[in-house]
């Protein structure tokens, strides 16, 4: 039998699944509109604009207005999907996200395109590694970080069908398919994508497949790693986290985000309050130097080998 690693599977840009699904949803429900800050090309929405010319609201390069307008569209009964580079959407319009969307509880879907370090060499102004930590601090906000095109599409379908604010990251950096085609998204639920008993790897987004590849390596060394996919960062599946803390030697979190306040922070907060255990948090602890997205992930230990290293260290030394 030929063993194939997830690392060898074909890769996909999740924005393609995004625009395809948004068009399907818009076809079925006239209330759905896109709202952009000139980001038609970078959100890959050219085909959407062609199909629904009146339903792609482009406010120009004006993120505060973009989010406020989305809130007003929701007041008028529309279901706006705001599509913009995650760095500008969350950084520039943070107060609108807080007041006009989350606190006002408007039915606005915020879609952060090309998040994390996807913009690579363009540098930290364009990296969106803070988005999850910022939005986690806002009550009434749901945060979803899909890992592949299947989960991206499933999360969008869920968002369209459920009332209220949500932030969905839409990855630009290509990823292999992690889920089966019939996957259905459930808010606030972790998915055990690989079972294991020695150590738990918790991940999402573009890093999930890397965690799976790390578990493959660890298995070859006799270390049984559980891999939990955690697409919903808020509300967090605390039961799955506590079970991991109880049943394995410790937890490694790995995400394309800052190493404080994101998924790792959420897991650590849960563990210290409910079942203290070792948690090793992988992410970006500083403004990244120049480099491609792939280079930067590897540099900060978010490669399969980097994640495996953190797990080995945790299993062997307890730190």
């Amino acid at each position: 039998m030929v063993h194939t690693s997830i690392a060898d599977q074909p890769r996909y840009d999740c924005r393609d699944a995004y625009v395809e699904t948004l068009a399907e949803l818009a076809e079925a429900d006239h209330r759905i509109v896109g709202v952009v800050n000139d980001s038609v090309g970078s959100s890959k929405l050219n085909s959407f604009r062609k199909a629904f010319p009146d339903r792609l609201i482009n406010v120009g390069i004006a993120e505060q207005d973009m989010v406020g307008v989305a809130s007003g569209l929701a007041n008028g009964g529309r279901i706006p999907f705001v599509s913009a580079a995650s760095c500008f959407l969350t950084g520039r319009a943070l107060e609108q996200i807080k007041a006009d969307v989350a606190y006002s509880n408007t039915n606005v879907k915020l879609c952060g395109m090309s998040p994390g370090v996807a913009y690579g060499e363009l540098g930290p102004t364009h990296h969106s590694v803070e988005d999850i930590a910022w939005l986690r601090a806002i009550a009434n906000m749901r945060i979803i970080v899909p890992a592949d095109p299947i989960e991206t599409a499933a999360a969008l379908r869920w968002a369209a069908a459920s009332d209220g604010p949500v932030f969905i990251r839409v990855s630009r950096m290509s990823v292999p398919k992690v889920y089966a085609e019939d996957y259905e998204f459930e808010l606030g639920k972790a998915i055990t994508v690989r079972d294991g008993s020695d150590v738990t790897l918790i991940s999402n987004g573009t890093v999930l497949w890397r965690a799976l590849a790390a578990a493959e390596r660890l298995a070859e060394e006799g270390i049984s790693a559980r891999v939990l996919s955690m697409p919903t960062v808020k509300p967090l599946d605390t039961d799955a986290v506590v079970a991991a803390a109880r049943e394995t030697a410790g937890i490694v979190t790995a995400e394309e985000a800052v190493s404080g306040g994101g998924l790792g922070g959420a897991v650590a907060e849960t563990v210290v309050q409910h079942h203290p255990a070792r948690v090793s948090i992988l992410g970006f602890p500083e403004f990244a130097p120049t480099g491609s997205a792939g280079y930067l992930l590897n540099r900060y230990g978010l490669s399969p080998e980097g994640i495996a290293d953190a797990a080995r260290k945790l299993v062997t030394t307890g730190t």
Partner: protein
Amino acid sequence: MTLTVEHTTMPVLGRLPVHSSRAEQIAHIAEAAKQIRIQDLKLVHHAGAGHIGGDFSAIDILATLYGAVLDISPATVNDPERDRFILSKGHVAGALYTTLAAFGFLPVEDLATFLKPLSALNGHPNRNKVAGVEANTGPLGHGLPVAVGHALSAKLDVSLRRTYVLVGDGELQEGSNWEAMMAASQYQLDRLTVIVDRNRLQQGATTKETNDLDPLPEKAAAFGFAVVEVNGHDHGELLDVLSAVPFRPGKPTFVIAHTHKGHPISFMSNNVAWHHRVPDAAEYQQALTELARYDRGRL
């Protein structure tokens, strides 16, 4: 001092019959504005907090909108086709709550909970807690973009429902307003009306001393709006202008309502100290006396 239900005695005003004359409408608005001011004064005095200067600056505009302009009533407060009013200067929540109570959206006795623990009547309005509130405002520069979004939804629906947003003049220093004005113009939102409460005072000084907005009419016109200036305390002028929009097909409307903070109280009017000062017992009595004399919008 404690605000109690005894301090909430305002008469509830119904809507006028559809074909009321202009004179009847103006009299109705004037009576509403008088009662709202008296109640709002009690609210701020007995609660020991509030923004009475801005409240009194905006009350004639609010009374005109709810008394004779907006197609909205307590029975249609959730009707998708209702007109929308968004209070962007959310710190004058007391004036909005009192107005909503005057027109039956909110039980008058609920005003006794203003600012109290767990009250729906927070220092800034919350759409999820108070019927008639369309957006949770408070941070400045938020209402106009939301209004643009609503006006866009109406346009997409090919609906004639209108959107009105009241902004403070100091608030126009926030850049988000100008982003929204560009979009409103681009999308030719002629069912959108921006009303500026042009009292020329912000928290601690005049707008001119702080970050001058003038020439405001020219700026708004340059951003693609049809601009109209009115006396923001003259109910007839307000009624005529706010009922007549749009003035230019394809253009959103920008109404500069010239007002005075604290109007019409002699010691408050146009006095920057009354942004959020609370009247003491003597000031309260004097203000009540002045408001009792105030008739048909005149002292």
